[in-house]
């Protein structure tokens, strides 16, 4: 199981600026290990965010995203106490979801 994501959000009016750090190797399938063997492709394919269960943001991504990906995005219509959850799924079917509660500013 992958490590939890680190999610930070700051509210400005009704817009939440969300920053998320995911823990993932994001292998491109082009790197060789110490034995000279290719490390197989292993990367996050889809990312989605929900505000109180309603989808607000989603993304399809390739292996060109850096290792331990960091994303920032802005969600409209957010208020303190709202639940924001972020999910990702990689090409091996591994997935993870983490949730935070937006705090007052």
């Amino acid at each position: 199981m992958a490590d939890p994501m680190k999610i930070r959000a700051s509210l400005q009016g009704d817009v939440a600026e969300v920053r998320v750090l995911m823990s993932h190797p994001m292998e491109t399938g082009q790197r060789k290990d110490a034995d000279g063997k290719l490390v197989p492709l292993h990367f996050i394919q889809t990312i989605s965010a929900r505000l109180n269960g309603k989808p607000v943001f989603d993304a399809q991504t390739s292996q060109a995203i850096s290792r331990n990906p960091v994303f920032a995005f802005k969600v409209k219509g957010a208020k303190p106490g709202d639940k924001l959850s972020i999910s990702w799924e990689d090409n091996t079917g591994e997935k993870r979801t983490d949730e935070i509660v937006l705090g007052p500013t």
Partner: protein
Amino acid sequence: MNRVRRSVLRSVGAAGVVAGAMAAGWLKPNAALAADRNTAAFEATSTAGAMKALSMPAPVDSKDIELKAPDIAENGAVVPLEITSNIPGTESITIFIDKNPFPYVGTFDVSKGAMPFIALRVKMAESSNIRAVVQAAGKTFATAKEVKVTIGGCGA
């Protein structure tokens, strides 16, 4: 010319191509099911090929897309990008890096309640143009910026 008939024929043709691709084993059935992921676009080795696979019309250059990226990236494994679209009705932001082995980086759908903004870090194999393509109200806009890479991030 009967336009409805034309489009019906075209969609039947496209479905046939997908079925053929699955039969030939190019597309794994579960990949085809996974939230309509456009595998062909992700596997395209040129920006033009990826845009074609995404059925994206040729974009119009726009100054209303802000693409922030370093002029020189010392480490190609971590290149920070920040994209803001000031085009009304922005639905999605798509990123291409022309000279990467697979130029299509991803599409970020902001139409369901997010602002037209995305920040992320990408890998770059070598110095290249980065393109940010915005789809808004059925139209396609783009902006590009060249980033010079000192050490490529392909092996990272």
